[in-house]
Structures are given as C-alpha cells and as structure tokens.
C-alpha cells in the first residue's frame, strides 16, 4: 500500500513535469495547438517599440502686421492682399538656433521620461544624442504603445491668452498638476451619465493669476434672462469646445457645426454684453476653448469637461484616455524643443531562440550533474529527491505562466537562484535524515529532519524574502519580474517540500 502511495505520488509528479515541459496538444482546425499557457516576456527577451524623436528642422511662414504682431488667420490671404494690407511674410524656424542647446536637449529628455512614468511605462531605455538633440526611446510593446507614442512628441505648451489682445496670461509655469476626474450629471434624461473632466491645479502664483483673470474676464451687466442664456451658453460652449478636441483630426463635419454654434453664441453674447472680455485656452498652439467666467475662481483649480456625459463604457474610456493624455502632457511640462517622430518601429530582441537553447542546455547539464551527485550521496532517498526536484521545476514553470509573471533577463537569473535554493534545501533535508537515522525511529527522523531544515533554511533567507517582496512592489518591470519569480519560487519551495517531499520521504521511512 505504501509502495503504491509513493509510486502514485511520483507518477503524478512525472505527469505534471510532462505537461509543463511538453505541453498538452489538441487539434485546432488543421494544426496542433498547445493548451498550456505560454510564457510572457519583457522587452529584453521579446522586443520593443523603438521611437526616434528628431529635432524639427522645418520653418513656418508667419505673416506679421506693420507693428510686427503675428496675424493668425492668414490661410486665405494671397500675396497681393498681404502687400495691400502692409503685412510682411517671414520664414521662422520652428526651433530657433538659440534654443538648440544641450540644456534644452537634456530638459526635453527629462520631460519625456516624466511622461513615460506618468503613462506607466516603467521598462524603457532612453538615449540622447547630445550633438543633434535626437532622442531614441525603446519601451515595451503592448495595447497602450500607440497612445504612449502620441504623447512623446507633443510639446505640451499650455497658454491662457486674452482673446483680443493675445496677451499671454498664464503658461505651463503656473500649473502645479493635472489629473482626470469624473462627475455624474443627471439634469435631463438626454444628458444623464458620467462626465469626464480634466482638472488643472495651479500653483500659488498660478492660482492668484487665475483668480485675477476670473475677476477680470467676467460677463458683465446682464439681465436675469440673459444670465440664464449666458449660463447655458457657457456650459454648451465648454461641451462644444471639448468636442472640438476629440474630433479635431477626424470629424471635420462635426467640427464645422461646432464652430458655427460657437459663432452664433458669440453673436448672442455680444448683443447682451458688449464689454465682455474672453480668454482663450491653448495647448500646443491649438485652441481648446474660448470663454469668460461666471464668477471668480478662488480654488486654484480649473475643470474642463472632456466630451459629453455618457453611460457608454467605451465612449467614457475614450474620453478618459483623451483627458489622461492631456493631463500627462500638462503635468510633465513643456518640451522646449519641437520634435518629430522620425522612426516608430517594432524591433525584435537580438536574443535568439538559439541563444536561449544554449543557455537551456548548459542549465540542464549543470542540473543533471547536481542530481547525479544527490543520487550517489543519498542513494534511494537521493533518487526520490532528484525526481521531486524536477517536479518542483515543472510546477514552478507552470506557476510562472499561470500567475502572468513577465519573464525578464533578471527573471531568468531568479529561476537559477530558485533552483540553487531548492537544491540546498533538498540537500539539507536528506542530510538531516542521514544524520538522525540511527538515533530515532524512522518516522520521527524524517519529521525532525524536515523541521530542522525548514527552521535553518527559512530563517537564513528572511532578508532575501524581504528584498524580493520589496522588489515585487517596485514600479520597475525587470526588478518586479525578478521579485515575483523569486517570490513564487520561494513560496513553492516552502509548500512543495512540506506537502510532497516530506510526505514521500516519511512514507518511505515507514515502509522499512
């Protein structure tokens, strides 16, 4: 009966090992597919998205009036009209020579790093060409990669300007932080749902400026009727404007309608209050909204509604992504240099399957030698120990796959450490059994040996356990991969040796 128990357990371990190393195959259409989950790898072992940001060398044609002020709406002006009006045409470098300095290159790199961190990209390589200012970034490829790329080359220039005089009232320097907020609206059935807001929090100076602006750029002298209209307009305007952000590049038709709406509203407001002053908010020289304030803002915070209230999860996620992108760009600061994406491609790792195979063969050879030594040293117990050792490795490989741990180069080293630790532990148990064999009865020998091995081994690795738990919580993929793989490995050593190894050796001892 005891023999059957041992054989059954060992066969179960062998079966698990076969599943882990060979897989379970079933026919899917005309091919065989392994049903066992595959490993997931980090950038080093899989490949990465590589983005090259090149310093923009282009220039923009700028039309200026006789006073040297830039004319904004110049698209429809012909050369004759420009001459007639006394305007002048100038070619202005997008990146003037004086800003192309090493300090600005370094600042740009730092801002890009901040953006990557804010977008939860923790596994990345960044390199700066200090001569040309070009920046190359490599980071993990996943569902968010394109979103991340779109945030890298954006300058992030934030401005609140006087709509009339174009005087710059606030800039990035006034922003403390920005975040995404939610709010529910249930005024009418049509508007019911969740609203997504971009919340911009200003620093001390910024808050003061915002209060001054909201005092100055306020709607004045309105009747109660027009007040209601004004409030509606203001809300609508906000919605219209945020819609503008969303559809800027895609929905021209809607954009046109929005502009029409805004124009009509402006006309209405002009009829009511001729003295009204408005501000324009710009991000990267793109108008986000033009508005005035109903009341002074003393909180130092500005909430911009992104899109319309919605109950649709996908729509809301879209708004959140949009708001998050803006928050990331505003929060990380203004890149002093204008960059273009020169390269955006997926680069496979140079660590080929052949390389991994060679490492695998070397590891197998070392393990084989170590297990042979175990068998020679501890005879039958050693053979059982060797089989169970392979079983632990098999279960460990399944555990890594099903706990979704990403394997990095650091993680591969963690596997090595776990195999060494298990070997030491197994050796301790078997050595303990040999030592105490003659003194006590067989059952107690195994119990005592396992107990002593656990006590000695785990007390010595407490600092390692502390380190790996700390690594697990670090926001750094290679390190957390190492931590997670070590954590699961040590947990497995603790459970497996207690449940399987201890039990089998105990049954074997009882058998004699």
């Amino acid at each position, binding site marked *: 009966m005891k023999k059957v128990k041992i054989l059954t357990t060992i066969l179960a371990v062998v079966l698990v090992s076969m599943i882990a190393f060979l897989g379970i195959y079933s026919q899917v259409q005309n091919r065989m597919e392994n049903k066992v989950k595959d490993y997931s790898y980090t950038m080093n072992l899989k490949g990465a998205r590589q983005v090259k940001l090149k310093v923009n060398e282009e220039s923009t044609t700028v039309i200026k009036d006789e006073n040297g002020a830039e004319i904004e709406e110049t698209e429809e002006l012909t050369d004759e009209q420009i001459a007639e009006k006394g305007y002048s045409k100038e070619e202005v470098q997008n990146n003037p020579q004086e800003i192309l300095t090493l300090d600005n290159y370094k600042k740009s790199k730092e801002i890009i790093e901040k953006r990557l961190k804010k977008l939860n990209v923790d596994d990345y390589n960044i390199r700066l060409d200090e001569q040309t200012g070009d920046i190359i970034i490599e980071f993990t490829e996943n569902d968010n990669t394109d979103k991340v790329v779109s945030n890298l080359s954006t300058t992030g220039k934030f401005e609140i300007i006087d709509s009339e005089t174009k005087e710059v009232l606030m800039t990035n320097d006034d922003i403390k932080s920005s975040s995404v907020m939610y709010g529910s609206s249930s005024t009418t059935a049509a508007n019911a749902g969740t609203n997504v807001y971009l919340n911009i929090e200003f620093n001390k100076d910024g808050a003061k400026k915002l209060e001054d602006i909201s005092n100055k750029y306020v709607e004045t002298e309105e009747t109660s009727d027009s007040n209601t209209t004004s409030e509606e307009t203001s809300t609508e305007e906000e919605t219209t404007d945020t819609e503008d952000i969303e559809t800027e590049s895609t929905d021209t038709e809607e954009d046109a309608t929005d502009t029409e709406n805004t124009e009509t509203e402006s006309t209405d407001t002009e009829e009511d209050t001729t003295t009204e002053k408005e501000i324009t908010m710009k991000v990267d020289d793109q108008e986000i909204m033009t508005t005035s304030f109903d009341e002074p803002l003393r909180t130092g915070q500005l909430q911009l509604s992104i899109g319309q209230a919605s109950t649709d999860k996908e729509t809301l996620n879209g708004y959140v992504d949009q708001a998050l992108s803006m928050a990331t760009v505003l929060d990380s600061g203004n890149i002093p240099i204008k960059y273009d994406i020169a390269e955006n*491609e997926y680069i*496979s790792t140079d660590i080929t399957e052949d390389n991994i195979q060679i490492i695998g063969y070397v590891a197998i050879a070392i393990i084989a030698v170590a297990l042979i030594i175990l068998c020679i040293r501890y005879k039958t117990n050693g053979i059982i120990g060797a089989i169970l050792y392979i079983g632990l490795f098999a279960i460990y490989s399944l555990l890594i796959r099903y706990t979704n741990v990403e394997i990095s180069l650091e993680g591969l080293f963690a596997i090595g450490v776990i195999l060494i630790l298990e070997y030491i532990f197994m050796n301790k148990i078997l050595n303990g059994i040999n030592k105490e064999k003659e003194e006590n009865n067989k059952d107690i020998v195994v119990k005592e040996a396992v107990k002593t091995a656990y006590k000695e081994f785990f007390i010595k690795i407490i600092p*390692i356990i*502390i380190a790996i738990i700390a690594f697990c919580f670090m926001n750094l993929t290679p390190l957390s991969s190492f931590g997670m793989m070590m954590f699961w490995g040590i947990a497995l050593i603790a459970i497996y040796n207690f449940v399987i190894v201890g039990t089998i050796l105990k049954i074997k001892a009882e058998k004699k």
Partner: protein
Amino acid sequence: MEKKNNKMKIIVLLIAIIIIAGIIVVATSGFNFELAYQPSKKVELYIGKEFEISDIKQITNEVIQNQEVLIQKVEVFEDTVSIISNDITEEQKNNLITKINEKYQTELSAEEIEITSIAHMRGRDIIKPYIVSFIIATAIILLYMAIRYYKLNSIKVIVKTILILAVAEALLFSIIAITRLPIGRLTIPMMLIVYILTLLGITNKFEKNLEIKKIEEEKN
C-alpha cells in the same frame, strides 16, 4: 584561530587590491559597454520576406570585418533587418546592399538607404532606476537585521551589513572593469545575484555568531 585570521587578512587584501585596480581601470579607460549601449551606426534594409539572422550574420562578417555587429528583425512581419555596428562606412553599406540583393533577389538601392547614428546610453541611466529600489529594500532588511541580531549589537550589524553589501557590489564592478566585461543587459541581473548571495552569506554568518552568543550566555 590565528590561521583563520591570516586567511581572512589575505582575502581582505585581495578584495582591496581588486577594488583599487578596478577604480584605476575605470578612472583611466572607463567601463566597456556592450554594442547596444555604445554610440553606433545603423542601417535598415527591407528584405520583404522572412530571413534568418544567421544568414545576415554571414554577410555582415564578410562586409563589416573585425567589428561587433548587432542584427535585429524589425516590425511584426520581421521582413526588415536592422544592422548596427560601431561604424558603418558608405562602402560597407553599399557592399551590404549588394550582398543582400544577391541573396534575397531584392532591388535595394544604396541611394535610398541612410546610415543613421545612434547615441550611446549612459551607464548611470541604466543603473539610476534601480538605486531607489535597492535603497528601500536594504533599509527594510537593515531594520530586520537590527532587531533580529540585537544581541550582536545592532549598530555593528547594520554597519557590517552595509559595508559587506557595498564591498560585494564594488568587487563585482571592479571585476567587470578589469576583465573588460561589457556593461549591458546582464549587469543588473549580476548585481541582483551578488546582492542576494551576499545577503545569504551575511545572514548565515550572523546566525552562526548568534548561536555562539547564545551558547556563551547559557554557559554563563
């Protein structure tokens, strides 16, 4: 006991020599970085079909002689090859294109393919993200050590632990510098292994000392 002390002295002296030698090497010639972290030149060639890295390696061995070359597949279809080396001249580029055209029947033109420069990656940029993590983990470990081995004098335990960990990492970097092993993707895993093994060694030593202390206390 004296023999043990002498042995210890020799080990300490040896470690000191290695670290000093390492510092001298770093000060005079710096670390050796692997190609992926060095300033280099890159050529990307669109082959338009799947290819084997080993075939491209054969070509680069003929064209870019006596230089390290990094070959990577580009894009999801893996039909473009990126060839990186310390330096790629126009002549080498032309030869590469000719040989690729011959091998894969492509019609790549030298005029359309540029040699692009890749900036180096600074060593501190590789290590920097890990520093805070190591400091946090070590601080928690030191706290544990101070409590667990208070009988061995907490301050001494903390100082010893910090010193041994620092010396172990310094030793690793000195060996890397002296042997001209390239700093690169394997550096951090090596640092981690040294860190873990050193911790294991330190705890082992302190546990033994604690055991001796307990026995002594029991005797008294």
